[in-house]
């Protein structure tokens, strides 16, 4: 009996578990990734694309699974788990590289002048204490003068002169100046024109307009300079009267909605007690007939009891 044909048919059904290619497949088990570096077989590609792709995918998956089964395993409640090796393929970065910080004014100046600047350490060696201390901040050395128990004062110094206080003021001024410069740097970096030349120009124009209208005749009888333009106010702009009413309704409803939310934010609920909320200030004014709490101290008036009530309510 010849069984070779049956065996061949069986073999054709079950493809080989070992994948052999001209260039071996690159397997990165950590990423569960296989890359096939072989050139594409043009013949089978053109003949049947689907078949070709399926075959490629099958080979890759087979290789990956074979690689996974050769990995060391650990036992778990759900069966053996393969220990994935570390990843080898370098995935590209997900996000763009961070932009370099815009240079500060000083950094730009230093670059222009060719000044090489070494950033100072925060710590400084203290000879007296024989340890590293902060230049500034907690126990900073910049407060040395302020903390000294004895300070030399110049002969012609003011009798009220307080060297500790003066040093403190100086330090605080330095901090304020630095903060101002820091904010200016931030503003420059964000590219806002708040302190730019255009705003300066607008400011100047505004002050010129103000001064021109600040004479007794509101600038009417002043001598005109050559090329001086006539002052013009801001022209008001209104919506057209024939705009769609439905549009208008929408914006009005929106406005009402926003007003509601504003009111909710701003209004505080009156504090409640048993007799209803009492406005202590108003109760005093009412009970003393507008003379204030002091006038109520001695007087035996009808309002006394209500005052006491109000006070109690206010404290609660």
């Amino acid at each position, binding site marked *: 009996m010849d069984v070779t044909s049956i065996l061949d048919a069986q073999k054709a059904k079950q493809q080989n578990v070992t994948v052999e290619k001209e260039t071996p497949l690159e397997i990165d088990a950590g990423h569960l990734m296989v890359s096939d570096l072989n050139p594409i077989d043009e013949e089978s590609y053109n003949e049947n694309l689907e078949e070709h792709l399926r075959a490629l995918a099958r080979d890759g998956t087979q290789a990956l699974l074979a690689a996974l089964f050769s990995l060391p395993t650990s036992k778990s409640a759900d069966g053996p788990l393969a220990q994935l090796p570390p990843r080898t393929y370098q995935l590209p970065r997900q996000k763009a590289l961070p932009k370099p910080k815009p240079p500060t004014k000083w950094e730009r100046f230093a670059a222009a002048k060719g000044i090489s600047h070494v950033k100072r350490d925060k710590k400084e060696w203290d000879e007296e204490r024989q340890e590293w201390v902060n230049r500034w901040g907690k126990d900073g050395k910049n407060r040395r003068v302020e903390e000294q128990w004895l300070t030399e004062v110049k002969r012609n110094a003011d009798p009220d002169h307080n060297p500790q206080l003066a040093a403190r003021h100086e330090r605080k001024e330095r901090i304020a100046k630095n903060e101002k410069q820091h904010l200016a740097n931030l503003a420059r970096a964000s590219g806002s024109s708040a302190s730019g030349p255009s705003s300066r120009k607008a400011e100047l124009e505004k002050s010129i307009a103000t001064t021109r209208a600040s004479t007794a005749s509101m600038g009417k009888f002043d001598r005109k300079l050559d090329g001086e333009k006539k002052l013009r106010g801001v022209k008001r702009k*209104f919506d057209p009267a*024939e705009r769609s*009413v439905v549009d*208008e*309704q929408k914006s*009005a409803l929106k*406005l*009402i909605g926003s*007003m*509601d939310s504003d009111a909710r934010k701003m209004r505080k609920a009156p504090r409640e007690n048993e007799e209803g909320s009492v406005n202590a200030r108003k109760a005093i004014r009412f009970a003393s007939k507008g003379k204030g709490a002091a006038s109520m101290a001695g007087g035996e008036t009808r309002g006394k009891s209500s005052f006491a009530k109000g006070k109690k309510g206010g404290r609660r």
Partner: protein
Amino acid sequence: MRPLTEEESKAVFTKLANYIGKNLVHLIDRPDEPYCFRLQKDRVYYVSESSMRLGISVARPNLVSLGTCFGKFSKSGKFKLHITALDYLAQYAKFKVWIKPNGEMPFLYGNHIVKAHLGRITEDTPEHQGVVVFSMSDIPLGFGVTARSTVDTRKLDPTAIIVFHQADVGEYLRDEETLF
């Protein structure tokens, strides 16, 4: 004639909301016909769209009035409600005050409402709340602002003011020339 700017609308709406609260939405979003607010000179008019469109073709100096005058803007930009708005305020009023027949005439002459003339008042009316004043036969007479909350009114003597007068229908005669 022009639509209100945002600040103007805000001023008008806050004033109206003091009297009719959330019902303000019903003034703007009407089922029958679209209505809108228009400013002519310093007056605010509540006009239906159709008459507003007719009014567009009238030159500004020639246009005396259109729709219902709700009030006017003062020179300092504050909005003051006129008695002509009473119809809408009475319709949607949240808080109401009814006055006795003997209190009607004093109120219609522009006086505040004292406790002796107070017939009925909506429960839980807070202090300084805009209220619409009705006669005992439910005829709207005007509007005002409460001086005291409903709870506080009980303790007061009969001559104490309960509602500060804002506008009354007597103004139709007294301020006839400036009202509309």
